[in-house]
């Protein structure tokens, strides 16, 4: 069964944020909640091996220990992180980035560009979105849609969303929420979604709360 497992896992900077976690995030949608600054973003960034924080303990994707792997190697194992504040990439267009990430052949490009444009239309993005520089001059909501598009076109198994719903308009929030629920049903995947909203994903499989340097399953 697909799962992300943490064993004796601690995360911190100068002070400890999360202490000695022993958790298994199972297949389905796992919502992670908690007060500002409690360590939600730090936790999921550390799972991707990004950030200045230090970690101790082990991370397993299914039964494979990825603790010593780099960000790139973890991605190769199927781990995907959607950023809370994705950076601008001047000079690289939105679709060119997806093309690069997936190493599309000429045939793939034609097929996926049409799919990409279709998704952009559903997300109410401008028609020339595919050719615009990645996140340059984009609003917060548009950047989140870009993150969502990356997820759609990379099809990962272990998915980490950091406040994907913040900054989105009501229509897009509902669209993305429904898509994630359907994706979770149709695929064998673990989805960790950091959010402050109760409405974004109704009836998630699991709800977790980070509190007092640890994480607890509420449902």
């Amino acid at each position, binding site marked *: 069964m697909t799962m992300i497992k943490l064993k004796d896992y601690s995360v911190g900077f100068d002070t400890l944020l999360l202490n000695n976690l022993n958790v298994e995030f199972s297949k389905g949608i796992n919502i992670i909640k908690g007060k500002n600054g409690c360590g939600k973003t730090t936790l999921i960034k550390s799972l*991707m091996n*990004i*950030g200045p924080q230090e970690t101790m303990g082990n991370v397993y994707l299914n039964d494979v220990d990825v603790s010593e792997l*780099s*960000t*790139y190697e973890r*991605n*190769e194992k199927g781990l*995907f*992180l959607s*950023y809370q504040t*994705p*950076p601008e*990439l*001047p*000079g*690289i267009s939105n679709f060119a*980035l997806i093309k*690069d*990430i997936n190493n599309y052949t000429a045939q793939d490009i034609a097929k996926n560009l049409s799919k990409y444009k279709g998704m952009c239309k559903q997300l109410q993005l401008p028609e020339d979105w595919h050719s615009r*520089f990645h996140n340059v001059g984009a609003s917060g909501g548009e950047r989140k849609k870009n993150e969502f598009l*990356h997820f759609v076109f*990379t099809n990962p198994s272990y998915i980490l969303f950091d406040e994907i719903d913040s900054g989105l308009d009501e229509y897009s929030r509902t669209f993305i929420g429904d898509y994630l629920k359907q994706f979770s049903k149709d695929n064998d995947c673990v989805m960790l979604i950091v959010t402050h909203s109760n409405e974004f994903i109704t009836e998630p499989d699991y709800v977790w709360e980070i509190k007092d340097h640890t994480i607890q399953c509420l449902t």
Partner: protein
Amino acid sequence: MFDLIHQNIVPLKKDKFHKHCNLLAKQPIDEKYYKHLDANTNHLIYDMDINNHSKETIMDHYESLDDRVLTCTDGFYYFGMTFPTSMSKQPSNLELFSSYEHSRKISQYSDIIKHRGTIADTVMGLVFTGLIVCKKSDPEHLHINVENMTQTKSNFNHLIIHVQNPKQTINIEYKRREEECKFVKITLLIDAGCDVTVNEVILGNSQVSFDVVCGEYARLRHHIQQLPNSYSHYVSNVTMNTGSDVQIKHISWAKRNNSINLFNNVYHSHKGVYDFISRTIAQDMSKIHVEGLINVTKRDTHSSTEWNHKGLMLDEMSSISGSPQLNIKTKEVTATHGFAVSEPDKEILNYLSSRGMSEHKALQNVCVGHISI
């Protein structure tokens, strides 16, 4: 033929143009621009003193030569083969061949060139000059391949392009050369009101001086890409006239111990707009130096200047240095300048890695983004 320049230059301010011509003739290259050469590289600096010889001295040397190959007009000395005055007489792609063998095919003066070349080599080196006049009836696109420079015995190759066409695009390509290169000087004269785009791709080693004289309300968009094998030096001198609008975008990428020097000098004008954007990348112990001097005199009121450089250093052993200088002598101007050097943004590298890009590919993307201007 050479009088064409003076005859057709009416829309330009005559005094300013002549002043500039004299300056070019007397100082085709200012020694200070190349002061770094000795310090930073071991490459040979060619003797550029040719125009410091007095007119009499030169005439003494060449008194026996035909008038057609040696013309002196107001401080301008022309040598070597000449190009057709109109592009319409030539196929769309005109190539500047420096080797004698090739030049024979397109020049009626080939024998004289050869003869003179022999003499010149023994005295001070051949100066190779070409003139292209882009007339109103000529094609809008002009392609120039500066080729085989190393085969010529000339030390100094000078190409003059006079644009009379209201809209003109000029693509200049310097072929990749591994060995020592010769000095190339390009003088671009733009008539009043003309709109010119120059795309310059400099592959391999080079020493280039690009001098521009802009007519009133002329517009120049100049894009330069510089990718040397071991060294590349580029001097840009821009003389503007009332209302002229110049934008220069310069991209340089130095690898494997390369040395790149950019010098950028501007003589501004009343209501003139000058915009210089430079992006450089240094890696593998290479060195880049960028220098700019913007001269705004008392008469150059309501002018606008923007000088901006951003450098990306891919390793600690490389260096990028520079000094933007604004020499402003009037109050009614807008002028900004900026010089920044940074390492690749780690956040972006991490972001791209998290999307499945290897470190090398992520860095490649960051570099591409950096030079996209």
